[in-house]
């Protein structure tokens, strides 16, 4: 494994972690709202949120370019207002990884929130809890297992994203070349030992993440 591969691995971990934080920050309130306060049009929000799960990653990447590219409306706005250029930048890789991993977290979180017995939440309200306290003291702890599973699935998906990342951020060594892209390069160049090392690292991280999510939280955990 070369120094460049180590950089790609650390870049992958940083991108996957950033994307997961972004996904959890955006996905948690949406999933909670749809699970707990059904509204007309919720189905459309669910459909849009889960679309990246069924679209080819390159299509997701292309759509992101259409929205966040330097000549696209949002892309121009971000560049003019904040000097932020996502294309061929690691932040673009974070965006691509976040969008492709979003459905996995969103579906798990929505299901976890929906599975929390409304009775516990109402009982807590009757005992003086505000909506905020009900969320932190009831809904969140009672759905934590499903949320953790969603976080891990999202993280692993973000770690392994290839197509959308390549479309939005490119494959620039040291800047946007993630471990998945480095593996592709190693395979194309016929460097089997390098490729196997990268496969081992990516596989080990994924297995460790799945093991972590499957651990019992406590005897009383759900």
């Amino acid at each position: 494994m070369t120094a460049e591969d180590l950089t790609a691995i650390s870049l992958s971990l940083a991108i996957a972690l950033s994307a997961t934080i972004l996904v959890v920050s955006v996905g948690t309130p949406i999933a909670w709202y749809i699970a707990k306060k059904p509204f007309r049009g919720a189905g459309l929000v669910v459909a849009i949120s889960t679309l990246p799960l069924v679209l080819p990653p390159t299509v997701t990447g292309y759509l992101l370019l259409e929205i966040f590219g330097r000549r696209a409306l949002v892309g121009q706005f971000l560049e003019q207002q904040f000097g932020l250029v996502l294309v061929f930048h690691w932040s673009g890789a974070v965006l691509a990884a976040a969008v492709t991993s979003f459905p996995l977290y969103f579906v798990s979180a929505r299901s976890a929130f929906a599975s929390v017995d409304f009775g516990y939440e109402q009982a807590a309200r009757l005992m003086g809890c505000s909506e905020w306290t009900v969320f932190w003291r009831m809904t969140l702890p009672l759905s934590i297992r499903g949320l953790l599973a969603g976080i891990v699935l999202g993280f692993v998906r973000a770690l392994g994203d290839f197509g959308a990342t390549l479309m939005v951020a490119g494959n620039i060594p040291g800047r946007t070349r993630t471990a998945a892209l480095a593996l592709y390069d190693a395979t194309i160049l016929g460097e089997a030992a390098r490729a196997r090392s990268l496969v081992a690292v990516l596989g080990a991280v994924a297995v460790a993440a799945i093991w972590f999510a499957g651990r019992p939280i406590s005897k009383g955990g759900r």
Partner: protein
Amino acid sequence: MAQQVHVFQSKVCYSIPGRFKLDLELKSNQRVTALIGPSGAGKTTVLKLIAGWLESNSTVALNGSRLDLNQSGKVKPLRDRGVGMVFQDDLLFPHLDVLANAQFAIKYARHERPMEPSVFDSLCHNFGVVHLLERKIFNLSGGERQRVGLVRALAARPKLLLCDEPVSAVDRAGRTELLANLQSWTEREQIVVIMVTHDHDEIRRMAGHVWHLDAGQLIAEGSPDSVV
């Protein structure tokens, strides 16, 4: 008796279009009212409507003041109603131990006079849960869960306590003792109680007034001897 009328006068009106249209009045001198009726009569629904658990156009007043509306006429959130509830399926929080469950309401209840630690100790002692406090919820028997449920509800110092078959899982001997403790505790704390039960002995022992419900309608009310 005028003073008693002021303390206990309570009124509960509610309707669910097509199902319920009831106007229940707690008799002024009765602190415990039993709610009876066959399965499916709507007893639990009535309790949930009174608590504000279910949305409706209910009117709930106690001690001459509305429990469901604040002074500006807006619907009060559940946490501000001063209503406690003991649930048929106990609804003890599974991720908290017994002590945390029992003290939950003390921590969060919006009460001008939260329960003092010594009173809480006495409450736990009276309801026989002292030896359970360190336990996890899933290690409790059905009867123990109901004892903890009662302590949790009473620790909030509600004005109105709604009990849905609160001792149905407790053995016969324990049930008598528990109901006696419930009666003396609610009397001491001036808590008005509405209790769903199927047990005629419990009704005669506890209640001063009985509402008999069937298919969502009040078909009889009066003293236990006249209704049961």
